[in-house]
């Protein structure tokens, strides 16, 4: 079921350096393995100099916003990410990496990276629903985007989170998910795209998203 078309894509751009940012926020093994299944070697790094040379950046992470931001600052990765974003490098945020790209998080009342305007908010448990929101859920895509093409209607994606990203501009919300009300689960602006769910744990549709990201030139929503 894995689509290996991306191998051709990767070999076309020989100088591509795909960097996975390691800031001690969870296990990156599954991201690395997913890329490997797509025929691509990701470079796991915490070195801002390596990030500076990246042609594509994956910014994953699980854990608490406060500690994550402290670690990013300590390692100098906050500035490295801001520079990558400014340079137009395609960036994919995943889970915590979709949250701390905003300006602020309700979790630990943390000041965040501010790549996108907006805040990360807490999921409010509705009657009979549990938080963390853990498991498979659908995404209702609101806008066309190169990273979210070739996905089947009714496809579901794997979530594990208690907070969600709320960008300031409605146009930055690319998809929403229902868990006692709809929240933004796919967001993006310019050369940045981010998912609250884990594409690396979301079966073949998740792999399709990663494959799309690897082929994306960083252009904004259509």
């Amino acid at each position, binding site marked *: 079921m894995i689509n290996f078309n991306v191998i051709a894509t990767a070999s076309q751009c020989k100088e591509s350096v795909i960097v996975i940012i390691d800031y001690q926020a*969870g296990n990156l093994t599954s991201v690395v393995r997913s890329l490997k299944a797509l025929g691509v070697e990701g470079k796991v790094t915490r070195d801002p100099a390596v990030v500076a040379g990246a042609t594509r950046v994956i910014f994953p992470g699980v854990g608490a916003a406060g500690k994550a931001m402290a670690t990013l600052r300590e390692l100098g990765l906050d500035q490295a990410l801001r520079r990558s974003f400014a340079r137009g490098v395609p960036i994919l945020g995943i889970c915590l990496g979709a949250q701390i790209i905003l300006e602020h998080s309700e979790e630990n009342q943390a000041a965040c990276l501010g790549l996108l305007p907006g805040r990360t908010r807490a999921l409010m448990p509705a009657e009979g629903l549990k938080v963390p929101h853990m498991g498979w859920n659908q995404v209702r895509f609101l806008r066309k985007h190169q990273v979210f093409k070739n996905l089947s209607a009714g496809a579901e994606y794997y979530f594990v989170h208690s907070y969600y990203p709320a960008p300031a501009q409605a146009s930055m919300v690319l998809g929403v998910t229902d*868990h006692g009300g709809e929240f933004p689960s796919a967001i993006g602006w310019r050369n940045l795209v981010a998912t609250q769910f884990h594409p690396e744990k979301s079966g*073949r549709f998740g792999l399709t998203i990663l494959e799309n990201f690897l082929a994306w030139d960083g252009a904004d929503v259509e």
Partner: protein
Amino acid sequence: MLSKRIIPCLDVRDGRTTKGIKFKNNVDIGDPVAMARHYYEAGADELVFYDITASSNRRNILIDVVRRVAAEIFIPFSVGGGIRNLSDMREVLLAGAEKVSVNTAAILEPALITAGAQAFGSQCVVLGMDVKRVTPSAAIPSGYEMVIHGGRTPMGIDALWWAKEAVRLGAGEICLNSIDADGTQAGYELTLTRMISEAVPIPVIASGGAGAPEHLHQVLTQGRADAALIASMVHYDTYTIADIKDYLARRRIPVRLVW
């Protein structure tokens, strides 16, 4: 809407998959990596690997199996059995598991739950509970007691109390196994599942007793479970995961139908 998860459980011993009846008379039914791949393609929402030799015999779980499984499937899977300390947890997670399940060690040393949650995040730490029905008493007011060693050793700990305590300590999910129902294929322990699921804010995976799709329907509705563990009913090809999901979807249970 969040889907209810259908989770095949693979018992592993000496690197091979087995399924026991009440943890006895284990039958070898295959290669765990091939089975993982099969269930991934057949629509499993998650997988659970349980090293059944680990607790009793102090064997290390098979990291090699975890690593090979992680290279083959792109859905979450957890690994349990014989996880004794942080370094065991780290090894399993770095080998590619999404979650690690602690059971006996968490009862003997509850601080392990907190340490694991702090080191890896609550979402990685599943509390495995093996529970046996007993006559309610002052020590066991809920009438459900924690047991270890595959049911051989009662711990004198109330299951309802322990579930809440584990949440306080940082567990992110509970895998609730009824020793009474396990291996019977006669249905899940609905009373126990509902009691625990309603008492904790974290997801509860019901385990033990699945023999037919209606059992999953019962435990996901009456039992209020967030997910259902299955074994024999799919290991022996009695049902496919698609059969089960189709049955549930027709009864308006949200399940993942496209994979």
